[in-house]
């Protein structure tokens, strides 16, 4: 077993552990923190099923962002949808036999990779060109974009420029899943790509990427507008009621 294989196997176990534990901790924290008041941004749905629909529109279509700014929406949606397709395409590295839908989606995954990079570059351009967005952009925002673009470009390069032994890569990841580590090809581009992905997984729970779970816990979006019909009181607020 080469040093590279051992190092990357360890790295991915670590990254997966940090990602899962970090995200779980955050989700538990969000879930346990009470929302003492009804604060949906109105007009809001009055029923729980209406809330599910509103949330689905936010997650799938980025409805609020569409209202806010068409350029950010366009680039942001292209990026996220591209990332979604790319993620589906990459599932083939983890499952055997490959499910039919995943097999069918393979070519779209490549377009997804391109779309992802295009969307990211559009978002990055705004950070430089629009004075308001430039003002709110910090070093970590540029780094995050750099990281994602590098992941996308290094991935696309393996498809179009320097191929890697994808069969061996699949063996490696199947091995990780089944705890029987198999050798990883040591192409520099592949190693770079995987290193960056591991970094992304590790920073996820400590960064603004928390917007992903955050959206589901956002009281302005996930509360039903029914305060007159249903009394809503947080646990800590109930204690106030026991005092005279």
């Amino acid at each position, binding site marked *: 077993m080469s040093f590279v294989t051992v190092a990357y196997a360890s790295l991915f176990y670590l990254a997966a552990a940090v990602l899962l534990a970090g995200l779980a901790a*955050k989700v538990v924290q969000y879930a346990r923190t009470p929302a003492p*008041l009804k604060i949906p941004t109105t007009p809001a749905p009055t029923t729980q099923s209406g809330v599910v629909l509103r949330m689905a529109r936010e997650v799938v279509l980025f409805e609020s962002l569409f209202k806010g700014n068409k350029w950010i929406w366009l680039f942001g949606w292209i990026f996220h949808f591209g990332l979604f397709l790319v993620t589906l395409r990459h599932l083939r590295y983890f499952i055997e036999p490959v499910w039919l839908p995943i097999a069918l989606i393979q070519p779209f995954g490549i377009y997804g990779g391109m779309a992802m990079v295009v969307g990211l570059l559009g978002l990055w351009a705004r950070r430089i060109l629009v004075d308001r967005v430039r003002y709110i952009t*910090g070093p970590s925002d540029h780094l995050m974009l750099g990281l994602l673009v590098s992941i996308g470009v290094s991935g696309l390069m393996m498809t179009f420029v320097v191929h890697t032994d994808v069969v061996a890569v699949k063996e490696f990841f199947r091995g990780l899943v089944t705890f029987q580590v198999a050798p990883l090809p040591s192409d520099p581009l592949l190693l770079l790509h995987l290193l960056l992905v591991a970094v992304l997984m590790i920073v996820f729970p400590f960064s*603004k990427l928390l917007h992903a779970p955050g959206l589901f816990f956002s009281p302005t979006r996930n509360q039903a507008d029914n*305060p007159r019909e249903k009394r809503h009181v947080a646990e800590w607020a109930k204690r106030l009621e026991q005092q005279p």
Partner: protein
Amino acid sequence: MAKVDFKVPELKQYAEIPAVTPETMAHSRPFVAKPEFQEPLGFPGALADDWQERAIAKMGDLLSRYRSLRVYLDSCVKCGSCTDKCHYYLGTQDPKNMPVGRQDLMRKVYRRYFTLAGKFFPKLVGAEDFTREVLDDWYSYYHQCSQCRRCSVFCPYGIDTAEISMAAREIMDHIGVGQKYCNEIIGKVFKIGNNLGLPGPALQDTLEGLEEDVLDDTGVAVKYPLDQVGAEILLVTPSADFFAEPHVDGLVGYGKVFHEAGVSWTLSSYASEAANFGMFIGSYENMRRVAQRIREAAIDLKVKRIVFGECGHAWRVAYSFLNTLAGPWDFLDPRYPVPQHICEFTHGLMQEGKLTFDKSQNDDKVLTYHDSCNVARASRMGSVPGGQFDIPRAIIRATCNHFYDMDEETIRERTFCCGGGGGLLTDDLMELRVKGARPRVEALNNVMQEKGVTHMAAICAICKSQFTKVLPFYGMEMDQIVSLHQLVSNAIVLTPGDDDELEDDEEDEEAA
């Protein structure tokens, strides 16, 4: 008009997004509350040496009690969608008045003390120590947010800067840096019962005066009762309605509507205030204490229903929070929502065909309608989402022949705040108020030019006071802002009072 030492913005035909110009409003800060205004609310009188520690501890406390605060401080990706949405940014160009800019003032402190990234890589993620300079920025800019929630409409995660401004003010109050305007007013509510400090006898006097005026005007005896035990409806209305123009014309209108409905109603001298400034300072405890007065008044007066007068933030607290803060309302008539908005009440009567209007009484006006921010984005009227937009408009259309809406981008859920909401309606923030009103006044100016609009109706005491004050800065007349129920009052055809019947009612109530 007061002397101005700032430049009043020029009104444009098309909304422009101004270029970022840092620190234009760094000097704007309201008067700090003296110890006498802090202590009745349970806050320390002045900044102590260990203020920083206390502030961080309070932030930790709020983070554990408010999911909104925690999630919103974590989730922002700095996409920029909110950057051109705040009326204070549009009016002042100060980037710390962009919603994300304002949030970041707290986010940088949060990251420094509550996140790993901020503890180890502060520069990278924009984390900063809570220094005196940061605190000064907080005091300035968290008092340049009217908690209107416009930003929350456009944020992909629904981040509501109002939640963060409220938390910031709560933290500042807890280290002894409160705002005089809000805290003095809350003290008055605890002591006297309303924001303006009007005692019961003064209210009685005013209401008797109104009865005389209405009788003179219309020849019909319309009652404006106070503290009448056993009345069916308790009306809770902003105290500005008792004397300020154009507010009082609205109150006259409510009385006429109740008269036509044939229901008994009463105001309360104990709960003579609809507004709840506890919300502005983000203090659940104080907000609850203010709200409890309404519960006590409802019990003492043995009413069956509660109706709120025209007031924006008040309606948010009433509609969204009153059940939480002062409920359950199981002792009231379950056939009616608690509380009801006066517009819901009037609209309901219209639908039952109980009101007759002579629209020509408002023919001297061409109307437009200003959606008050907290009614629009933090509440509802009626049973269908969006009723808060449609019901007031339906009332205007029923009472006026000439009505035109302002630009779609500036009404309904996208409405602009008047510039004086959220505890900023004070003369020590005049520059902010004038500049913050610009987006709304611009849209008003456009319908004045294009449609010949002469008046703008509103259903919020703050909006009415704010526009009365700032419209003249833009070369408009202060009386161009009117109460919605003033239009109702003008147009309503009163049924001549059957005095015997009224007296019977009173006797019944006293017996009850």
